[in-house]
């Protein structure tokens, strides 16, 4: 892991443990902690870019990204890729994970805690599409190029690059994904659950803009316990990655413009 010299200032909302007090016939409702999502800003100083093969144009904005605080949209500029490879695909196992990613620590989280992360992706379709994939989630080692050491799970997006292709929103598990694919897709919500050294599983819902109603839902299981070691606790990190849809290249100057939002909870079930 590369050093993080500046402590990240996470603005995540962490849901504290609470006890459930049963109501006594008066119709008292159970405890609920309303959560406000964080709109992700890669330029806020909490994120570190790891880009082993230089796919991000770091002369653009702050380390390759700009953030519009009015709309919440992030724009990322690509440096280009002459020859594609499976290693730049977020949802492929072959040749490792060499796609660029931003990462930051999650305060108080480790692989043994119960960590639940919910993300929302909204794509800006006015930007010229290219065959891209995107993830926002949790990883044990975000700077590893080995998918089974990175151990990442989270929300997922991809698009084939042609205006006739449907956008796909779903969940990413290590080096695989399941998503809803529909031309009417406007956004996707996903939740991943990890606990006790398991990478757990995820669920997603896609929805449309005109009615605001859901189009599809689905799930994916990681089928994977990280196996770091009995009793060992290691920190886990937020990760936001940009990759290719397939094994093709990237035209220099290509943009990603999306609104990313997330909440992360470290849940303590021992406090009851």
């Amino acid at each position: 892991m590369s050093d993080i010299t500046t402590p990240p200032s996470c603005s995540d909302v962490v849901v504290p443990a609470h006890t459930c007090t049963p109501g006594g016939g008066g119709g008292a409702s159970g405890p609920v902690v309303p959560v406000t999502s964080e709109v992700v800003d890669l330029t806020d100083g909490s994120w570190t870019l790891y880009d082993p093969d230089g796919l991000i144009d770091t002369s653009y904005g702050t380390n390759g990204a700009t953030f519009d605080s009015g709309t919440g949209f992030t724009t990322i500029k690509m440096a280009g890729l002459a020859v594609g490879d499976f290693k730049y695909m977020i949802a492929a196992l072959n040749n490792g994970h060499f796609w660029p990613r931003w990462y930051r620590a999650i305060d108080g989280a480790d692989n043994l805690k119960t960590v639940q992360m919910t993300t929302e992706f909204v794509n800006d379709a006015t930007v010229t599409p290219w065959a891209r994939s995107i993830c926002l989630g949790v990883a044990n080692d975000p700077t590893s190029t080995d998918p089974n050491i990175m151990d990442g799970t989270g929300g997922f997006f991809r698009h084939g690059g042609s205006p006739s292709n449907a956008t796909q929103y779903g969940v990413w598990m290590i080096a695989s994904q399941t998503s809803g694919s529909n031309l009417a897709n406007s956004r996707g919500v996903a939740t991943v659950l990890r606990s006790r050294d398991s990478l757990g599983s995820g669920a997603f819902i896609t929805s449309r803009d005109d009615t605001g109603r859901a189009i599809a839902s689905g799930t994916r299981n990681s089928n994977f316990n990280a196996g770091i070691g009995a009793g060992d606790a290691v920190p886990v990190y937020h990760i936001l990655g940009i990759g290719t849809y397939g094994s093709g290249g990237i035209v220099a100057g290509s943009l990603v413009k999306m609104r990313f939002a997330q909440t992360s909870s470290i849940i303590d079930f021992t406090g009851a």
Partner: protein
Amino acid sequence: MPEIFIDFPEPDTAQPEAVSGQGVDGTSFDTEGFVIPVVVPLDQAQAWLDLYDPANQYSPDAATSREIARTVLDALKAIVEAQ
């Protein structure tokens, strides 16, 4: 004949999904399709395996093959017709 189940109670809600993954032999795939969960009861898994010889290209026999195929295809038919 052992049993298998399809866990899909609401075929009219089915939507195609884009799936990128790896098979049990490690082969990667990337496709759009219908994910149909097949459940093999734990106490019948060995009975199924007893009917199968991977070294014999004609295994399993027709009756066994038909049992599995019809269960999966009935589910696929319900899903596709509900689209």
